[in-house]
């Protein structure tokens, strides 16, 4: 049981390049989330998904797109990377909507946009 995994761990992009971050979970969780963490800040929600084929915007969605074609995977895309998107990206999953459900976090992806 690997929990929540993220690929890649590190990436450097040039302004205008595109890339996709992959989040995978093997816990059969319904809900998945993408957050970003900037220096000196807590995590902020980018997008989330409440099930296969569904996505919704979070607090800071601009410049990102997401897809959830399979229940176990949640993809975060940057179509045209900007230096402001330099950040550490965390993925999380949650079993369901019960008030007792905690979120489980992946190890993070450190992205630098030059």
């Amino acid at each position, binding site marked *: 049981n690997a929990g929540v995994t993220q690929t890649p761990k590190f990436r450097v992009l040039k302004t205008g390049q595109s890339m996709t971050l992959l989040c995978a979970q093997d816990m059969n969780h319904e809900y998945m989330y993408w957050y970003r963490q900037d220096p000196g*800040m*807590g995590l902020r*929600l980018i997008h*989330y998904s409440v099930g296969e084929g569904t996505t919704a915007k*979070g607090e800071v969605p601009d410049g990102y797109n997401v897809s959830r074609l399979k229940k176990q995977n949640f993809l975060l895309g940057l179509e045209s990377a900007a230096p402001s998107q330099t950040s550490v990206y965390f993925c999380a999953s949650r079993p369901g909507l019960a008030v007792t459900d*905690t979120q489980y*976090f992946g*190890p993070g992806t450190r992205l630098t946009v030059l």
Partner: protein
Amino acid sequence: GIQVEQSPPDLILQEGANSTLRCNFSDSVNNLQWFHQNPWGQLINLFYIPSGTKQNGRLSATTVATERYSLLYISSSQTTDSGVYFCAGVYSGGGADGLTFGKGTHLIIQP
């Protein structure tokens, strides 16, 4: 959305000391969690504590939901406790919404 405030922002202690970290919420929350982010950036779940008190070794946490605050206690601090401690919660009317995080308390334990 809810606002989450953590105090103090920074804390420097000697090994063996005790500490109390505080988290205040602007509105009612569910799924209140405490995390430790270690110096390598990894987020570690410490407690899921929407109300009441829990203990795990030298760490314990108390949430008073009616007064919208939570406390994290660290006793007999060790250098490995260093890092950033975050609290986070989901607005109780938010359904599947993600966690809202505070800015964290940066804890340094000196040998």
